[in-house]
């Protein structure tokens, strides 16, 4: 090989090696970037008036006159929407208006009987009412505009009849007029299409039984059972999506035979061209902000709030508390054990078989898969130990933290060992030479000097077990459930929640910001703990080297 090829190969190698590190960085950005970006949406977003209403109702937060005024303003802006839809509905909802006609007939009969009119007159008026009803129904059922006109005109002739003045029968004429107006404008052959489309529009605007709409349920109507359906779009990004859905109808078509279906969009307004509903589309696009009042919101309470309707609303407060409870309790078990073991391993060094077995055990323990710790925790702590201690053998915080303590024992021992080894030998010698016993030396000199290092190891262990999921799946973490009242109850944790919200929850899939928010909270918690450890460690280094 000549020199040039060798040089070139060398350069290629250097570049490749550099690329591997670049790749690592890209992977880190690629993994964290999308999650952090989407997760930040759980805290930072454009909150609408619906969000503030929800906060007031569900979390007792921020109710005030200003909010009432704001709600009144938005209601004002929304009124036009309601009236446009109601007007349109009168023309196309045949069953509804037929029902209305029948009800008027019935009510009119009751009215007459109540008034106590003479039998003959009663029979006559009843008959006329029935005729009007029949005529109306015929008109409603008809798709021929001329027929409708004739029918309705004959109905309206009775409008001035004093017999009907001031009675419930006046409703007939209002129905007839409204329908005539509507019928003049719409293509009556499209009745059913209109009806289906109107239902879709109403679903998008007012919510369905499955998902909330843009504006929330109409005021005065019955409230749906789920709290999430009581509100419209609480976030402006959500609102924009709904606006898009409102503006464009989506459907799937087969572009080519045997190819996957392709999504197409078409403006929804075209469906209602020429009808009284057409202005609605322009109105909503133009007035969306007036109806929702979006405002940039920092929802820091996300880290405190409990969730509502399976993470549709609310935050991850109980998950954070649960995670901290389990990890801190776990640390309470593992720190004394780990520090003592480390001290023994460093200070009482003897290369005998006992030490070798201890070292081997620690290494083995470090390699055991986390799920096996879960099995062990279930089999030993919960099913074996708890009944013998008089506790109920069920998954609980205590079981989970003990399992995590066992899992993190090797990490803690190694970290403390390193910290204790880093204490200069001269400190120990100085103390021993002054006549301190080994124990005394450790307690008064070595341990204080190693403490920051041990703390660093502690925080690292903490961050390690805060993210563990597999060991606590069967030993104390649950996906949904009440806040734990004692350590003998299971708890929600961020890690278990991150799994659940990604895989098991259909409601949360509608709100990706809350899905990502949970996992980003977990990552943040761990990165903050790590950053603390790194800062602490560098300060320890400086302190020990500075002298």
């Amino acid at each position, binding site marked *: 090989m000549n020199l040039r090829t060798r040089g070139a190969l060398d350069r290629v190698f250097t570049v490749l090696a550099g690329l591997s590190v670049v790749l690592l960085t890209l992977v880190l950005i690629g993994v964290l970037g999308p999650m952090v970006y989407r997760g930040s949406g759980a805290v930072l977003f454009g909150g609408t008036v619906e969000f503030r209403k929800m906060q007031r109702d569900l979390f007792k937060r921020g109710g005030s006159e200003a909010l009432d005024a704001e709600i009144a303003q938005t209601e004002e802006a929304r009124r036009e929407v309601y009236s446009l839809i109601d007007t349109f509905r009168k023309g196309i909802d045949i069953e509804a208006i037929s029902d209305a006609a029948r009800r008027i007939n019935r009510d009119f009969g009751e009215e007459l009987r109540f008034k106590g009119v003479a039998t003959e007159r009663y029979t006559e008026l009843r008959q006329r009412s029935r005729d009007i009803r029949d005529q109306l129904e015929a008109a409603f059922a008809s798709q021929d505009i001329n027929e409708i006109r004739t029918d309705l005109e004959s109905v309206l002739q009775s409008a001035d009849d004093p017999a009907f003045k001031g009675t419930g029968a006046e409703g007939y004429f209002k129905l007839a007029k409204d329908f005539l107006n509507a019928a003049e404008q719409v293509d009556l052959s499209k009745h059913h299409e209109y009806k289906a489309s109107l239902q879709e529009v109403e679903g998008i605007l007012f919510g369905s039984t499955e998902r909330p709409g843009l504006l929330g349920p109409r005021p005065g109507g019955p409230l749906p059972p789920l709290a999430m359906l009581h509100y419209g779009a609480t976030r402006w990004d959500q609102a924009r999506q709904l606006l898009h859905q409102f503006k464009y109808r989506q459907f799937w078509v087969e572009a080519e035979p045997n190819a996957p279906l392709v999504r197409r969009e078409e403006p929804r307004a075209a469906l209602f061209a020429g009808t009284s509903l057409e202005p609605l589309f322009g109105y909503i696009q133009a007035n969306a902000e007036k109806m929702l009042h979006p405002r940039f919101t920092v929802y820091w309470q996300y880290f405190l709030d409990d969730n509502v309707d399976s993470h549709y609303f609310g935050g991850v407060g109980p998950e954070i508390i649960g995670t901290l409870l389990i990890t801190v309790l776990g640390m309470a078990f593992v720190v004394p054990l780990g520090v003592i073991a480390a001290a023994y391993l460093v200070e009482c*060094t*003897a*290369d005998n078989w006992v030490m070798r077995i201890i070292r081997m055990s620690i290494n083995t323990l470090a390699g055991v898969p986390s799920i096996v710790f879960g099995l062990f925790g279930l089999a030993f702590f919960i099913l074996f130990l708890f009944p013998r201690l008089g506790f109920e053998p069920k998954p609980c915080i205590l079981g989970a933290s003990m399992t995590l303590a066992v899992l993190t024992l090797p990490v803690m021992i190694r970290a403390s060992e390193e910290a204790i080894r880093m204490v*200069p*030998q*001269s*400190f*120990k*010698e*100085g*103390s*021993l*030479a*002054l*006549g*301190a*016993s080994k124990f*005394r030396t450790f307690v*008064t*000199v070595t341990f*204080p*000097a190693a403490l920051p290092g041990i703390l660093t190891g502690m925080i690292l262990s903490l961050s390690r077990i805060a993210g563990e999921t597999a060991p606590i799946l069967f030993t104390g973490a649950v996906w949904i459930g009440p806040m734990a009242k004692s350590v003998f109850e299971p708890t929600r944790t961020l890690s278990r929640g991150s799994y659940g919200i990604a895989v098991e929850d259909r409601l949360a899939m509608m709100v990706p910001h809350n899905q990502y928010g949970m996992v980003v909270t977990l990552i943040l918690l761990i990165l903050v703990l790590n950053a603390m450890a790194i800062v602490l460690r560098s300060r320890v280094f400086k*302190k020990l080297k*500075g*002298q």
Partner: protein
Amino acid sequence: MSSLMTPPSDPPPVETQYLASPPTEDRGKATVPRPGSKMDIMATAQNRKATKPLETVPAGEQAIIRSERFSLYYGAKAGVKNITMDILPHMVTAIIGPSGCGKSTFLRSINRMNDLIPHVRAEGRLAVDGQDVYDKRTNLVNLRQQVGMVFQKPNPFPKSIFDNIAYGPRLQGVRNKGQLQHVVEQSLKAAAIWDEVKDDLKKSALALSGGQQQRLCIARALATRPRVLLMDEPCSALDPIATGRIEDLMEQLKTTYTIVIVTHNMQQAARVSERTAFFYMGELIEYDRTAKIFRNPGKKETEDYVTGRFG
């Protein structure tokens, strides 16, 4: 700068001193004192620094540290072999020798600091005040309180100056604040550092300069009121001025304490000590009055070493 200045405590050049001191009569005699052999001649000999002649004493009774065929092994390797020597009270005994010769090992055997190293094994007898320190019954805590030590690198604890000095007394159970204050002050005065730190005893000991730290360590060792002070190359990490101060300090301390100093600096040994032992390859080659070792060594190796013709 500082290296050009003559330290205030610098003694006159070594050669002049030796020429000035009277010739010794015991030239040619066995230089390594054997147990039971008479030490009279050596003890009575006028030392350059001794202000009054040392009393004639029978060695066996007066020696504060007595080593008989003492060997120390690290596993299979011998650190020191077959050392037999008596160290006399109220003097400075210097141990010199090339690095790796076992001089530090021997020093650290006296207060059993070598115990920190795994697989250490001792043979023979090494006694302090007649008590074999490697005896099973020896109480290490009491031993180390009586045999203080100053290390090569100053090693103050990362605590305040006061807490550093009070560490030893507190170990002995002194809790009384006034008493501690007294001991701290006395020790710092004895170590000639009181004037420099008296205003700020709460300051971290790590903030002191190297020379101050070393004197602080000496004060810390004195605060336990030991009888013997072992110094393991106490000046190797210090500049000449600081070294001069420590040497002055040793001069004062030897009236009260027995000092054993390991040094690689022959001038220092010559300046401060009354007795000098030369170690080579883990063995004691020669042990005699300092003047004799430097002016008229009995062994070829010693002569080669002190004249700098070594290796």
